[in-house]
């Protein structure tokens, strides 16, 4: 539970309430430009939201980019620049999927997450990215315990595909031991029928859906969430091909926070 401080929940109080920073003086110092691997990876980007301007406007969008706000998104310090607060009283935005997210063919999503107000007791789901027809999700499933304290719903970050055509399938990483304030990288790949999921540049877990989806299986995109326990999300990026393990590792190494005690 959040601790009250000056009448505000502590985690809210910690949210830096400052204006979005200006772009760095030298654009080539940006790791996505300076690092040859990341720079090459950027060729494959179809949608990217860094939230650095405290805005739901994408930094990159291969398709239409005008967001339709959903609720009142909140922003805070991110793993790089600024981040979106997902869950709690925050909000998100709807974005067109066409050209921005090749969900019907093959691609990947990378996303940094940081638990902000996770109780590890009971909490709803926090969607980071989902389709508006509820078919594909990148989310944290909040935990649920019964009156005896027995887990009735495991808490986990999940990459879900739910549709009649594909059937339902899910990849997940448990989040029971995720401490508040630690940034983690998720990479979700799809090359239907195979979907795979990596945490912090680690090995991909994989499953397959029963049948490849089609264009009709997806709606538009909803980035961020007004429900569930507060989580910071940053550097949301969609690619038009799956990422390799090396690329996932590289993404993680490029922005991973300092080890414990080294901050």
């Amino acid at each position, binding site marked *: 539970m959040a601790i009250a401080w000056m009448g505000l929940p502590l985690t809210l109080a910690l949210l830096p309430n400052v204006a979005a920073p*200006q772009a760095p003086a030298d654009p080539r110092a940006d790791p996505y430009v300076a690092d040859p691997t990341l720079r090459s990876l950027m*060729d494959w980007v179809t949608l990217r939201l860094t939230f650095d301007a405290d805005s739901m406007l994408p*930094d990159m969008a291969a398709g239409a980019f005008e967001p339709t706000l959903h609720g009142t998104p909140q922003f805070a310090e991110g793993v790089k620049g600024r981040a979106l607060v997902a869950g709690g009283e925050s909000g998100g935005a709807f974005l067109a999927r066409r050209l921005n997210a090749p969900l019907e063919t093959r691609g990947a999503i990378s996303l940094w997450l940081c638990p902000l107000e996770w109780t590890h007791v009971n909490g709803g789901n926090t969607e980071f990215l989902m389709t508006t027809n509820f078919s594909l999700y990148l989310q944290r499933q909040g935990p649920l315990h019964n009156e005896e304290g027995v887990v009735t719903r495991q808490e986990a970050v999940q990459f879900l595909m739910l549709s009649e055509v594909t059937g339902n399938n899910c990849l997940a990483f448990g989040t029971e031991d995720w401490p508040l304030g630690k940034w983690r990288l998720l990479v979700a790949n799809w090359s239907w029928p195979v979907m795979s999921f990596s945490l912090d540049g680690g*090995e*991909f877990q994989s*499953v397959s859906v029963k049948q490849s989806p089609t264009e009709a299986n997806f709606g538009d995109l909803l980035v961020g969430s007004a429900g569930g326990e507060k989580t910071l999300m940053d550097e949301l990026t969609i690619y038009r091909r799956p990422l390799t393990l090396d690329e996932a590792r590289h993404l993680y190494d490029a922005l991973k926070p300092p080890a414990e005690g080294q901050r």
Partner: protein
Amino acid sequence: MIGIGLALALASTSAHCDAAIPQITLRPLQQAPTIDGRIDDAEWAGAVRSVGLCSQYNVELCAREAILWVGADQQNLYIALKSELPPTGDLLTRGVPDGDRDIIAALSDDSVELVVHPHLGATTGDRRYFHLIVNARGAMFDRSFDEAKPNDAISTAWRLQGWQFANQLLDGSWHVEIAIPFAGIGATAEDLRHPWGLRVCRNWQREWDQSRWESIAAPYEDIPTMPRVEFDPAAPVVQVLSLHGEGKPRIELSISNPAAAPADLAVFISDTWSRNPPSEFTRTFPVLPGAQETVTFEPPHGGPEGAHHTIIRVTRPGVEFPLYLRDFTWRLERPVERWATTREDKQAVQLQYKVYPYYRKLKVRVGIEALASKDKVTGAEVSFARAGESKPIAHERLAFADYAVEIILDTPELTAGDYEVRVTLAGEGVPTEPVIGKYERKVFPWEHNRLGLSDRVIPPFTPIQVKGKVLSTVLREHELSGAGTWDQVTSLGKPLLKGPMLWRVQTGGEEALVAPGALKVESSRPSFAVTIGSFSAGSIKAKVRSEWEQDGMAKVRVTLDAAPGKQIDGLSLEIPLDGSQMPYIHACGDGLRFNLAGKTPEGDGLIWDSSKANRTNIVGTFYPYVWLGGGERGLAWFADSDKGWSLDDTTPTVQIERQGGVLLLRVNFITRSTSLDAPREIEFGLQATPAKPMPEDPVNWRRWIGQSYESPEVQPFSIIGASYYYGCMNFDFYPREHDLSIYEAFSKARDTGEYDEAFVTQWMEGYRRYGIEPGTDQWAFYNAHISAGMRSAAGTPRAQGWLWTPYTNARGMGYEMAEWPTFQDEWVNFPYHERSKSGGLAYDICPVTSFQDAAMWYYREMMQCFDGIYWDNIFMAANFDTVAGGAWVDEKGRTHPSMGLWAMRDLIKRTAVLFNEEGRPVFANVPHMTNTNIVPILSFANINLDWEWQYGKRDFQDRFTPDLTVAETIGRQCGNIPLILAGGFYDEKDPAWEWCMRTRLGVCLVHEIRVWDWHPASHYAMYEKLFDFGYGSPDCRVYNYWDEGFPLKVTGVDAKGIVMANGPRAIAIVTDYSEGGQCALELDLKALGLPPTVKAKDVESGEAVEGAGGRVSFPLKKHDFRALLFE
């Protein structure tokens, strides 16, 4: 400040870092170009033109072509840049404009980058210069530098105002036109009197390069290396028109003189190919007012191995600043693949494949949906060959539909080695290199073995007998009809049907009269029989073949003959069950923990159908399993898939109607009008229960106790609940690296009862090969398991008769297993899967034939220290593999999965036969079947493990209803000992623990369920008393509450009970399932053969309980139990 990218670029600068920087002189344009994104040569005729931009990598002209125009008038600086587009004809444009915010992402797009220094050389006043990057969408990053503030030079807040920017994709090129207002960069008329600095760059993507005007890779803000632009109202205009033509160097310049006076010019061109001496061109000539002169120079060319170093200089006598100077290196021959888009295209081809060594098949799917050039693809060829060999062993042409194609090819027997699946696309402008997938064929000694397949009857099954129309299996007699159905089935001496099973056929919109054929017995052996029936209905003719096995399972295959031009509208099987004997129902879909188990719904008419049932990935209305019955007797109908059926998308497959005393089970196989132009085959199964008697060997099943009970009167058994305990790295068939020394060590420990610490230490050392070192969590994990495995071995001594069973996973596998690369395609449930060498699957394997063959081989190895097999994840799961998995594709393109029912059955059956073959008739084979009491799958096992759910501290009476328990858990329908997991509450110090365990004991005693895990001592004490009474001995009769004639009446509370009688004594146990209360028991003494004088006393405390004549009354706490001895 030096940008990182440019710092790297500097390191790669080579031969011409000392090249002269470009210098041009601009004459004010007579008419400003229209900034519309279309570069019209006439509009830009007054601007200086250059050909090519230099790559940052080697400072040669970039292979991707570009033309640059620079002009000016009194208000603006004009720049036009035309650059080549990739074969895909598009740009990368993702950066999104956001007002005045700087968009760094523009740099990740195809973009134009400029540095403009209008105050070059100024020492006072405005000394700023400007840097900007813009993509095709106009997303811009810009900043200013101020030479006057060396310590605070950069301002990112600066934004260029009032500029014009337009661009278009035209004729294979990106046209960019820019007008920069002098006012926006602080340039005054005075600034036109001195040279400016100007960098122009094209940032290319796919792949990335920065190409710039100058032949020097220097930081953008580096002033000395900036190209120079002079302004002179009298200057002629120089345009470089080309560097080559018709495959040879051809340097062509145009010089025009719009001025009123003639201009004397000197043109110098030097070109040096490789290490040749320079070829030089010099010409001095006047250009008359309004005239245009063209200069052409064709220097020699030595071939593609050398580059040309060219200097173009156009000067005027007496004017120091040149009209045009460029010093650069370039190559005549351009590489064919100048873009990464070709490689991207190759990566965009999705090749998925599966290789099936047992089936000699290759399945390939090629998807080109993500391919930019997909519309140019005219087809493809797939070939399958040994790696390194060009001659394919299988190949086929592919034709795409909706940008995808799937094909199944026959292959020859694959010998050991590496193979490649190669797909080559056909079409102009499509990737030409084959897309390659790799496959490793290893050959294993277990392939196609016959273990567990011998034709034998294994006890307690009895030989199949066929006498006339009656086919008998253990405990059941089936009276067969000529239509291939059953007229009656008698189980434990009682008929289950109220009438014969019937086929229902609809044709022409009407019910057709079904005429049965004659029954034939095709073959009959003790373990297997085949009966043939048939029926006709109008023009519909069908053959019904039933394959019978010793457990009474009949696999029924209905073949509808082809009847060209005829339709069948409906086909159903109706089974009129005796409703009075079917109080329970259990229906299973593709999954667990959601399946229906409990009381058969009340009411008349349609009381249930499969549309109400849970399912996970089943397609359409198909539903695979329904059982109806009592505590033991009943009937199961089941099917592995709806292949060959013809179902609409609304009619439920299974319907149950109550019609008076008849419980009609109807299964619909055809529910829509269907052509019979070809034969149609429909498969399902029938099995009456119980499938076999409960175990009696070596002791009655009631005396099998899990874990640590030690007594000569019982059969102790123990299960080790993970494969890590015996050295596996994952869900594997065998220990790490197939090192069976651990089996030997465990076997020795079981013989000696001693923990072999030296072996554990030695085994642990082997994990170092996997990078697992002492002190790590992984080391601790494996050490804990191996140590516990050894302790378990020593604690299950053979001398005491222990049965020791290892965990395996029928739906799991570790990728590191040697078999995985070769057989993963046959084993996974997925239509396709990744080919990873680390990790594993826990729920997505189907134990098809090759899996079974491997399993039998390795199970036999396990027998040297183990006495059975435990299978995790025994449930039906959708298998979408169309070759090994039995899935099929309907006319809508939907893949209908199989359920793995037959595969699961075969795995467990073969294991039972294997133990028998190996002379091990006593075993503990344990399917973990939480919520899936599927009789045809479980009938060859002997212990069912249920209840891996509803964990916590709740009373067990609140977790599972008695109805669910009877329908799903008690094991009688299969003839298997019922076992449950402990319930997930292990903290003995928790105040709630003792009570929770007591509620568990009450539930277990009444339902005769055993618990896998450790029991509290009081529980063992209770069982000791029961065994002392005779429970589990031949003389002790046991009565269960779900049976007819149960000799105990319970009133006052909602409780369930059990009665056991031995001679003149009886024990009655009741457990409350509601709120408790005053419990009154009345024993049917007469039925039990007890005298009316019996007195009751509490089994646990020994205290007398008031009552007489078999009647007692006592308070019973909520969910408590009480055991009373009547004697």
